[in-house]
């Protein structure tokens, strides 16, 4: 078993903006350990001669030319927005700093 701790689950939940109950934290700690273990099995299956990749597709350099395409109208852009002022999206006051 991997050693996922309760503190790690709480930390991740905080980063992900997910509110968890005590019971959920408890069960997720166990379940995440099992998930991590399952994924770790991959490394048992490959030897040192197989290079690590970040992608299953043997492709590189998929690009597009620098040509302008369609844009969204304000009506389209704001269709799914909870709030806007006609030109910009309106969000709750931000506490914290820009990244």
């Amino acid at each position, binding site marked *: 078993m991997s050693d996922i701790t309760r503190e790690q689950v709480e*930390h991740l939940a*905080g*980063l992900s*903006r997910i509110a968890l109950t005590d019971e959920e934290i408890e069960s997720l700690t166990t379940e995440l350990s099992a998930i991590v273990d399952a994924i770790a099995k991959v490394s048992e299956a490959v030897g040192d001669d197989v290079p690590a990749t*970040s*992608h299953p*597709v043997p*492709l*590189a*350099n*998929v*690009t*597009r*030319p*620098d*040509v*302008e*395409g*369609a*844009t*969204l109208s*304000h009506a389209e*852009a704001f269709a*799914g927005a909870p709030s806007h*002022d006609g*030109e*910009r*999206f*309106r*969000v*709750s*006051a*931000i*506490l*914290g*700093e*820009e*990244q």
Partner: protein
Amino acid sequence: MKDRLMDFDEALERYEPVLGFEVHVELGTRTKMFSAAPNPAHPDHHDAAPNTLIDPLSLGLPGSLPVVNDEAIRYSISLGLALGCEIAESSRFARKNYYYPDTPKNYQISQYDEPIAFEGSVEVQLADGRRIDIPIERAHMEEDAGKLTHVGGATGRIQGAEYSLVDYNRAGVPLVEIVTKPIVGAEHSAPEIAKAYVATIRDIVLSLGISEARMERGNLRCDANVSLRPRGQERFGTRTETKNVNSLRSVERAVRYEIQRQAAILAGGGTITQETRHWHEDTGTTSPGRPKSDADDYRYFPEPDLLPVEPTRELVEQLRAALPEQPAVRRRRLQSDWGFTDLELQDVVNAGLLDTIEATVAAGASPAAARKWWTGELARVANERGVDAASLVTPGHVAELQRLVDEGTLTDRLARQALEGVVAGEGSPSEVAAARGLQVVSDEGALVAAVDEALAAQPDVLAKIQDGKVQAAGAVIGAVMKAMRGQADAARVREIVLERAAQS
């Protein structure tokens, strides 16, 4: 709260500053980094209304997928090469995860462990002519975030805001982030080096034509890292990262301020908090922002929606061959061609007149004359009017003016009057000289008569000259020049004065 500051020289006596910079460059491609939405950093779209340069990807809408802009790749490689970097054979994108409304996907696509360019070096030159190599750690590609406006509250700043408005035009603008290695040994020059480094990056970017590099528009943004360590200590001190430093002058001031602020804290037995600080242009101070904390756990991982970028060596060599002359190399070449001192060249560079003087020399003026007119009379007028000297007259005008002086048609003084007419839009130097009747009096008879008259009016001076006190002739020359309304060749007048004095 007002920070306590230590005197700059005292701070440097006790502590050694270590600098580091992260400079973000917005690339001026037509479209965004990962989508075909128009790029607000392209000159065609500067004035776009909010949220008009957006597509599903800019908003992070479900199902939208990124595709890399090939021009942005080429620009990034060119910039990497100009920074003396290696270009990666394989480079990949990574997700930097954080929740903030300027980034609607809840992650920024950036690069982490495999940047496009790494291990470079940039030479900067200081006002006294010293050249310093700034080590570059990496230059990586990423996307810009949207722009937030905080509404409500007393100051319009983040604290006290009631809500925020978001414009996603900037979301997805191609960026290259250039990261230096720690810069040690800057000592008293630390603020100047900071400014010179950012100016050099700006010059390089401009020479490549990949960005307008306007700091006031945010095309070029600098975060300055500063730490101090007591003399003799090997380990670096705790650093702060000052953001929002949006002019060359601010970069210099912010670094100086942080050195003085941190020195006062350390000397008082305190410790430096590792944090982001904000630069305030109006007060010339920094204030604390966000402390580095758990929130910096960005959980980078390889971007699953994008494939690796593997620039062919042919492409890299092709871009290397197309690089313009490095600004520092060009300056050195021109300085040597022109025979300028370090200080003279620095004046020209600081005044932004390098191109103008090069054009004036090409139009036929000597480098010294070109420099004299542009950094003298024209710079003075430009300064008075608050405009660029280069907007007043053309390099061709200045070359023609100097030719008139060299031919003896105009004296320096007449040339200045002619220049005034050119600036006023009265035509070329020759046309102004003709229209205003500006011409050196070369009528020997008139000059001799004027000299005789002046000598007669000042018999005591005449006696002195005859006594061998040649320097006394100045008073007579002045009188003659005045009588000729300045339109005489002073050297010739002097000769005549001495001749006539000897004969009388």
